[in-house]
């Protein structure tokens, strides 16, 4: 089963295919493109409206963008576009497309003028329209032949030309920058306007617009070009140009409801009754004012004060202080008021140099603007709250304010008088419980300081810094040395305990010397045997220790061989071996020797051990 939405989608798709197929077939057989131009009237008076219509028909008419308007030679001013309309007709399977663009113009220059043909480009071909000649006359007499014929049968359309229009009236066309242009939009009518509404606000780019307050505008009579009109100022606006140059104030558009009476020839009593507006029919009509060109002059560079910030008008400067004799921490208010006519909103904050002894807060700014009586005027007030913190005679230097006077065409600078505030010390000596104190500080207010310290532990040199002292450096270096020493000592111990050969070798000298000194104790003929035994022990023990050989049963040849293995001096080895043999000989086959001989041997043994120790 199919869902209903899907059904619809399908249908739509089918329709779209069908429709595009039709368009495709018809366009391929369409007529060539034609362009034509027409106007609603060929003869018109100044300030009257002209409606220009450009019709495009045939192939591609609906795909061409709005054509470019030709140069109107200054005779006609464009008020706006009336938009475009399009019609598609299909007759006997042939489709014809017509598109028209409508433009509203206003006659601004009298004379005869030919509106040049309008060119459009389509698919590389250029198409041209016809040209239209129009005649613009000074007075409104020309377009009124129909009225002259029969005033009773005034067609409503004809009546709109000059019996209902709006004018933009400016007070001047040459202004300085920021000098206001007062524009009054005045509606002129000879027909009965039941209501109106502003359909298009004037384009005022490049201006700061300030609308005047206005209620329901009063109507009055005014005679223009010998005709009597009912006029009303429907809008008044002050425009402050923001930059120099030529500016255009755009047209104001108004939609009016115009009552059109059904004119009947009869003088029936009922006619006057039915003449009542209640029974008349209304017609809607759009009218536009003419754009206004304004020349905006730049500020003269000559004599421009430094404090000038672009304010134009006529101003007054007031500055005052509420009290000139104050105590510290009492607030004073400095009020600066700038009043006058001009653009109040752009008034800058004046440069006030407040002495730094004052605590100051952001100023309070109030402005009041009056938009009545044809000028924009008002005042701007700056209120500064100042709190003096220090007793002194404080001066507030003159406040400077500059503006440009457009009437005189020159700058004016206003100064306020210099203000002197005498600040005296507040009641409390120094201490001020003001807004600047924290809760903790407030707690301390009124307390006395604590008493002095009666003794001082020790005095130090002023500027003494421990880390620059010798003690500091010494205490930093000494433990490091200790650490290095102890690491070395531990390494030494480890070698001793872990390596017997090393340990024996280290101990050899000490042991040999101990035995030799023992031998020395037997240095006598009577103890000859013991002496030689000890000396032998010392020599063999030393060699055995050094060579890591078992001390018992070591024989001279083995020692000799080992010594040679260690690359020792040959003569030293020989001497050593000889000493060992002498000792052995004397031990086991004692011969009579003198004490002198024993002493000599002792000396030689000692020397040999020392030499060997060195040689190893």
């Amino acid at each position, binding site marked *: 089963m199919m869902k209903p939405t899907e059904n619809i989608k399908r249908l739509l798709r089918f329709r779209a295919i069908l429709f595009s197929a039709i368009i495709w077939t018809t366009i391929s057989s369409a007529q060539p493109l034609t362009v034509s131009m027409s106007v609603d009237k060929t003869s018109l008076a100044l300030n009257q409206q002209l409606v220009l219509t450009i019709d495009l028909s045939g192939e591609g008419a609906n795909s061409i963008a709005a054509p470019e308007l030709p140069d109107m030679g200054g005779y006609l001013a464009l008020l706006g576009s009336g938009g475009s309309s399009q019609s598609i007709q299909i007759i006997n399977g042939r489709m014809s497309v017509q598109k028209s663009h409508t433009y509203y113009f206003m006659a601004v220059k009298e004379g005869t003028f030919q509106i040049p043909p309008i060119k459009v480009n389509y698919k590389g071909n250029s198409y041209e329209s016809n040209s239209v000649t129009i005649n613009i006359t000074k007075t409104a007499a020309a377009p009124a032949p129909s009225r002259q014929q029969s005033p009773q049968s005034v067609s409503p359309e004809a009546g709109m030309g000059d019996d209902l229009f709006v004018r933009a009236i400016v007070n001047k066309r040459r202004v300085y920058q920021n000098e206001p242009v007062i524009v009054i939009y005045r509606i002129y009518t000879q027909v009965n306007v039941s209501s109106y509404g502003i359909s298009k606000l004037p384009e005022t780019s490049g201006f700061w617009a300030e609308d005047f307050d206005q209620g329901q505008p009063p109507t009055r009579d005014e005679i223009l070009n010998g005709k009597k009109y009912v006029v009303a100022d429907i809008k008044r606006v002050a425009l402050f140009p923001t930059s120099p140059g030529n500016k255009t104030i755009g047209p104001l558009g108004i939609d009016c409801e115009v009552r059109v009476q059904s004119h009947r020839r009869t003088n029936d009593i009922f006619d006057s009754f039915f003449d009542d507006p209640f029974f008349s029919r209304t017609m809607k009509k759009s009218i536009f004012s003419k754009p206004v060109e304004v020349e905006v002059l730049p500020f003269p560079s000559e004599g421009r004060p430094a404090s000038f910030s672009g304010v134009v008008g006529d101003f007054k400067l007031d500055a005052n202080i509420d009290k000139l004799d104050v105590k510290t921490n009492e607030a004073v208010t400095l009020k600066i008021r700038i009043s006058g006519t001009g653009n109040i909103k752009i008034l800058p904050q004046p440069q006030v140099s407040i002495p730094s002894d004052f605590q100051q807060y952001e100023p309070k700014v109030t402005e009041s603007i009056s938009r009545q009586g044809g000028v924009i005027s008002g005042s701007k007030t700056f209120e500064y709250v100042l709190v003096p913190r220090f007793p002194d005679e404080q001066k507030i230097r003159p406040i400077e304010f500059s503006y440009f006077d457009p009437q005189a065409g020159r700058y004016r600078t206003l100064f306020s008088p210099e203000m002197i505030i005498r600040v005296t010390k507040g009641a409390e000596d120094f201490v001020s419980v003001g807004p600047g104190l924290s809760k903790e500080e407030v707690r301390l207010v009124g307390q006395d300081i604590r008493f002095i310290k009666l003794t001082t532990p020790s*005095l130090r040199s002023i500027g003494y810094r421990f880390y620059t002292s010798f003690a500091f450096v010494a205490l930093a270096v000494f*433990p490091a040395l200790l*650490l290095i020493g102890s690491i070395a000592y531990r390494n030494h111990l480890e070698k001793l305990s872990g390596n017997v050969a090393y340990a024996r070798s280290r101990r050899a000298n000490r042991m040999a010397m101990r035995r030799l000194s023992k031998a020395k104790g037997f240095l006598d003929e009577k103890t000859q045997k013991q002496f030689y035994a000890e000396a032998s022990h010392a020599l063999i023990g030393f060699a055995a220790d050094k060579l890591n050989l078992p001390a018992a049963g070591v024989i001279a040849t083995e020692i000799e061989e080992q010594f040679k293995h260690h690359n020792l001096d040959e003569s030293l080895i020989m001497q050593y071996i000889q000493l060992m043999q002498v000792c052995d000989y004397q031990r086991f086959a004692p011969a009579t020797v003198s004490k002198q001989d024993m002493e000599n041997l002792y000396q030689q043994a000692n020397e040999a051990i020392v030499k060997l120790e060195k040689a190893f």
Partner: protein
Amino acid sequence: MAAILYIFLLLVPSGNDTQALMYFQKGTDAYQKADYRQAIEQYELAMQQGYASVALYYNLGNSYFKTNQIGRCILNYERARTLAPRDPDVQFNLQIAQLFVVDKIVVPAPFFLFKVWSDVKSYLSSNQIGVTALLFYILTIGVIIARILIRKSSVQAFARYATSPLLILFIISAFLFVVRVNDDLSTKEAVVLVDKVAVTSSPAQDATEVFALHEGVKVRVTDSSGAFSRIALPDGKVGWLLTSTIEVL
């Protein structure tokens, strides 16, 4: 070991200068008799001997307070505080004295970690943190030496547990010490001693005044040029003032 430490401590100049101590005593006597000018004179004489202590700075600050010289009062309290950052008397009196300073420099509360960091940094004076770092250094090395040399199992066990905490304490205190020494050498603080001084935008007599400072404000001296010093306030304001209007801590 202890003997060696003792010898080194003897090398630290204690400088108990008898002359200075005598002046200190005289000043204290004068203060007690409420003769504050005399007290100032005596304390200043003690300082002229080249010696100082927390008590001397503090008492001198008190004497200046009693004679309404708020600038010199704060200067001496601040000096006392650099020697003893946590002395409650110094802290209290400095707070009281600061109430009399006209300028209130409002500094927005710093991020709490920065506050903790600055509190930690200023908990000890630079000398105290130096001694602390050194103590942990010696203890750490002592424990390591004990582990190396003494084979006794009880000593070994103790030393093994003690090494890492001591090493960590040593690293922390050494880091703080280095930071403090760096701060000491790089920042120079001073106190305004005149009633009012104009702080200008450049080091010249006719330069534009940026703001004014009053007696007792502590500033950081960042530069100097001729007779002028460039100062910075805690709230970020900077400017130049005459060096003669301030005194460095």
